[in-house]
């Protein structure tokens, strides 16, 4: 099934020829002929107008002082005041720091681990072992963050969690993983690794399967060992995949998953846990500062767009194929 879909994405084919009005005819004739199709199109178009484009228009409240009973249109304009408030707020540097630290931890730890796991899996010639390991490590990807968080609460709980007890019995440590701010980031990265590293290997494994086997043979004749072959043949062969995935990851950098962070946040670790996404929720939804939090969200999206175009530009400068 995969191949034809890929083909169809790559190029549109005109195989179907409708028996009636082509371009150039009167629209009323065209419409009458296609009335059932336009009728079918209607719910989808309404959906996009209401649930996708209306909220985009709603972003304008970032530049307004939104008052619920005046609505989006009726609320008075305030220019950049919400943004100025945010940049002057001591929360801003804290949020930026927390978000960036988590993003770099994920990029620096989880991302390379994905590549390493893919490389290790690629070296396996025992296909039953390879398939079994793949089946196991893909599972967590399909679980909700609620389940991941719940499992963490149970495993790391103070006094009763297995991990707490194990460390307490063997080393006499007394670590409160869930509330100690110092443990917040390691836990988040650990969850991310557990949930998504396995799944992330799929793309790299697909790239690895296209590497030309003759090159390995030639390298063996030249006396290259296992690691040299990986270093000189395998890694260069998947370089463009790594770069594309890296650009995508950097573009998503500020999108520290809302659900994950929200679920792991508590009163004791707020100082390090707050990131842009959860801040928008706490300030916007629970405190009702709609305009201000929309401005925060808009700022985050804009930085995200700059990041993705910036990385793409850098990748191209260093003579790599970029994303677009």
């Amino acid at each position: 099934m995969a191949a034809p879909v890929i083909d169809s994405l790559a190029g549109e084919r005109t195989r179907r020829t409708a028996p009636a009005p082509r371009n150039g005819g009167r629209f009323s004739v065209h419409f009458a002929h296609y009335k059932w199709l336009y009728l079918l199109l209607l719910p989808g178009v309404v959906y996009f107008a209401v649930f996708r484009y209306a909220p985009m228009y709603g972003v304008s409240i970032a530049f307004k002082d939104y008052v619920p009973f005046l609505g989006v249109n009726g609320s008075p304009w305030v220019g950049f005041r919400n943004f100025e408030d945010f940049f002057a707020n001591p929360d801003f540097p804290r949020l930026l720091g927390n978000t960036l630290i988590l993003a770099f931890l994920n990029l620096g730890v989880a991302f390379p681990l994905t590549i390493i796991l893919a490389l290790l899996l690629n070296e396996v010639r025992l296909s039953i072992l390879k398939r079994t390991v793949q089946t196991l490590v893909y599972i967590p990807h399909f679980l909700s963050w609620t389940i991941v968080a719940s499992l963490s609460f149970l495993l790391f709980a103070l006094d009763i969690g297995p991990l707490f007890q194990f460390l307490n019995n063997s080393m006499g440590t007394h670590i409160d993983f869930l509330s100690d701010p110092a443990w917040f980031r390691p836990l988040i990265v650990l969850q991310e690794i557990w949930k998504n590293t396995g799944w992330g290997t799929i793309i790299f494994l697909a790239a690895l399967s296209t590497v030309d086997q003759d090159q390995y043979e030639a390298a063996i004749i030249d006396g290259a060992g296992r690691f040299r072959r990986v270093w000189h043949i395998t890694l260069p062969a998947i370089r463009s995949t790594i770069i594309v995935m890296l650009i995508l990851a950097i573009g998503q950098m500020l999108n520290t998953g809302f659900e994950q962070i929200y679920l792991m946040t508590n009163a004791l670790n707020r100082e390090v846990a707050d990131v842009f996404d959860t801040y928008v929720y706490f300030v916007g939804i629970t405190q009702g500062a709609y305009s201000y939090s929309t401005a925060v969200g808009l700022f985050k999206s804009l930085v995200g767009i700059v990041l993705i175009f910036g990385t793409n530009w850098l990748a191209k400068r260093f003579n790599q194929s970029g994303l677009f």
Partner: protein
Amino acid sequence: MKIHNTRGGRIFDAANYVFLSLIGLITLLPFVYVFAGSFATEAEITRRAFFVWPEQFTMGSYEYIFATPAFVRALVTTILVTAVGTLVQLAFTVTMAYPLAKKTLRGRNAILSLVVFAMVFSGGMIPTFLLVKDLGLLNSYWALILPAAINPFSLIIIKNFFQELPAELEESAKMDGATEIGILWRILLPLSKPVLATFALFYAVGIWNDFMSPLLYLSDNSKWTLQMYLRQVTAASDLLGTGNVDPNYVPPEQGIKFAVIVVATLPILIFYPFLQKHFAKGMLIGSVKG
């Protein structure tokens, strides 16, 4: 081709196999513990730090949760919302994909551009919340279904699939006087069953796992879904200063938490073989498209 393996290579292979097996086991370990714990007595959970097999089997935790109205309500609600939501989302996606598969339809390209634009840009949390609120959908289950009714990416893949089907099928039906809606219903949908099943699964997992929408839109805790209930059961003891947890809520025994986690995980595990097969393909298609 047979790669000659050196001694170092064999040692590496052995170490690699052991290491990967360990990774696989470690991934599985939390489930095994929770699964075993859900059948164990509270005394055993407290006494033994970690186990993969209970000394004394009991269904007590399951009997307890299935006798708890709030849990049963959350479970039934989630099953219904997932079923109805999947059908609604699939219906929205298919009805829009079919006309867009017709190259001669005017306005098609403009609409497709708008769809692609919506893949990249979104209004964000607050404007979407305000919209749902203005539509009067707060505390309505439709708020969990409608805002995500069409996944633009699924829409485009289904559109491409329709486009690839042989045109002759449709033309002969037209000769017999069928309308486009009849063609879609009687000819195209039966042909697209495997594809539609894949996307149904995709939508179902999304709704089942969704935590953010119920958190945003369902403040009435008698309407909570399973994910919300799970979060209250497992997190209540953790000094949350985040709101949304009833301060008077008394956290249950550990065994109860284990059982709720198992129930919330089970449907995903049952469908996992299909998920693995189809989602892996979906991900690769996504990467080709960029």
